[in-house]
């Protein structure tokens, strides 16, 4: 394990210390060491927007804290849900009295911890509503959509929810916009190598050289199938064949595309892959309104990529195009 760390059991604490030093102009700590917030949160008169998740996905989750984005984030161990307390403290940090939208991903741990946090918040008079991202097409068939995980599509959900809140939307409006964003979004991942959780010390799954895992999850969860490693053009094709029919996306649609590396894949390759993705979309008459290519939602040092497509309508376009200032997403 080639890692630049101190104590493998303390990577999250140590990371947060550095993170808060570097980004003090944008993000500050709260009284809970596992909850951070936008320096101006709670923003007067604005619905609070909150998420939380396991660590190891930089810039997600904490890197999306900022102006017109997330107000507070609960921080978990590597690949492990934050505590109920961290979520609860994020609600407190984000609430200006207008209520809190908790926009998180569909993982068992997150579901349970959010649920308990919402219960406590309710007792305290903080109104919290939730949207659960389930954009990962490969994680369950469409007939069991409630089982699907949230992956990089969460970024679109945060962007839309954050923008709606910034525009003065009520809690219900923010929830509706974020829900629409994720309902309109589909993702699929492909994995080329595994990764090592520092505290575990060895890779917890294996992808043979020369093969790839189609539909891999953000923690290395097995995908739909293992195939030989294809070319970038073929991979683009495979990913779109999984995503496009699932919504479905059709000719005339305008979409936003996010192609995120999983960590160790050189960004050069993401551009190569993107080029074909856009070409194939164009062939089908689907127009790319905005694209994001880079390391937006990683899985430690996995090689591979997640492709995320969100169908846009006028409201979503408007919200997506809005300025945003966060570490992971800056738009002016």
């Amino acid at each position, binding site marked *: 394990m080639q890692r630049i760390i101190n104590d493998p059991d303390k990577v999250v604490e140590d990371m947060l210390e550095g993170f808060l030093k570097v980004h003090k102009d944008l993000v500050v700590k709260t009284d809970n060491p596992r909850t951070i917030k936008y320096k101006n949160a709670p923003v007067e008169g604005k619905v609070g927007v909150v998420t939380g998740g396991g660590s190891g996905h930089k810039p997600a989750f904490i890197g999306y804290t900022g102006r017109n984005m997330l107000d507070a984030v609960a921080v978990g161990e*590597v690949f492990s*849900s934050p505590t109920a307390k961290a979520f609860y403290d994020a609600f407190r940090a984000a609430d200006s009295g207008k209520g809190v939208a908790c926009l998180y991903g569909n993982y*068992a741990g997150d579901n*349970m911890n959010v649920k308990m946090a919402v219960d406590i918040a309710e007792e305290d008079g903080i109104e919290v509503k939730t949207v659960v991202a389930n954009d990962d097409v490969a994680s369950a068939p469409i007939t069991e959509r409630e089982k699907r995980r949230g992956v990089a599509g969460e970024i679109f959900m945060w962007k839309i929810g954050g923008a709606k809140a910034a525009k003065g939307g009520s809690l219900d409006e923010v929830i509706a916009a974020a829900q629409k964003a994720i309902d309109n979004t589909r993702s699929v991942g492909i994995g080329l190598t595994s990764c090592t959780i520092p505290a*575990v010390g*060895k890779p*917890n799954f294996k992808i043979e050289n020369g093969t790839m895992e189609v539909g891999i999850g953000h923690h290395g969860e*097995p*995908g739909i199938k293992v195939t030989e490693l294809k070319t970038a053009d073929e991979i683009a094709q495979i990913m779109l064949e999984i995503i496009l029919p699932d919504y479905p996306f059709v000719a005339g649609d305008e979409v936003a595309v996010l192609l995120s590396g999983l960590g160790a894949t050189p960004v050069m390759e993401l551009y190569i892959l993107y080029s074909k993705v856009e070409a194939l979309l164009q062939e089908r008459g689907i127009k790319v309104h905005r694209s994001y290519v880079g390391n937006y939602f990683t899985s430690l040092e996995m090689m591979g990529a997640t492709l995320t497509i969100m169908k846009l309508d006028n409201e979503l376009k408007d919200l997506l195009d809005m300025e945003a200032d966060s570490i992971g997403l800056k738009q002016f």
Partner: protein
Amino acid sequence: MDYFYNNKGVGIVLGLIKTIQDNKDYLSEIDGALGDGDHGINMNKGFTLCKERLTADVTDFSKALKTLGRVLLMEIGGSMGPLYGTFFIEMSKKCADKETIDKNTFKEMIEAALNGISTLGKAKVGDKTLIDTLVPAVEAYNKALAEGKDFSGALIEMKAAAEKGKDSTKDMVAKIGRASRLGERSRGVLDAGSISCYLIIASISDSIKALLES
């Protein structure tokens, strides 16, 4: 005796903690086959932290259970935090006001624990989770009581059923949690959570039996 004193039971929780600490690597290894290989780490972190919090003023079994549950719930996160956190908090609630704990109190405790964990996690028998250990364990305990067995006897039945339950996960296909993505590939290996649950039940059972016999 067919009961033990609440204020003599802190050792039961200490035993639990030691059991988890001793099995840290084993649990992670098992989790590595179907999950992400951190079950031992998650469990060890929570139970070890609890040990630090078990200060001198925690003198009762019920308080020790509450401390453990609280630490898991508040400070551990993941799935194990809320699931086992609820488990121990529910147990503690049912004996908080008792001076002594007999077999009927213990029945209420484990039923509440099972109920809490099921409501929260929504897993069912056959899903290949810790529920496959817990449900038969509670059923066996209740059955033993119904058959007129004493506390120790029922604990023996509970532990044996937990072990069988744990072993039953081997042939199951995971239907919940990350392993469910594996489908048929998940068959043939034990579920990590069902093992930690067995270890917990076995440890509690052994510790109480020792108390009852002392």
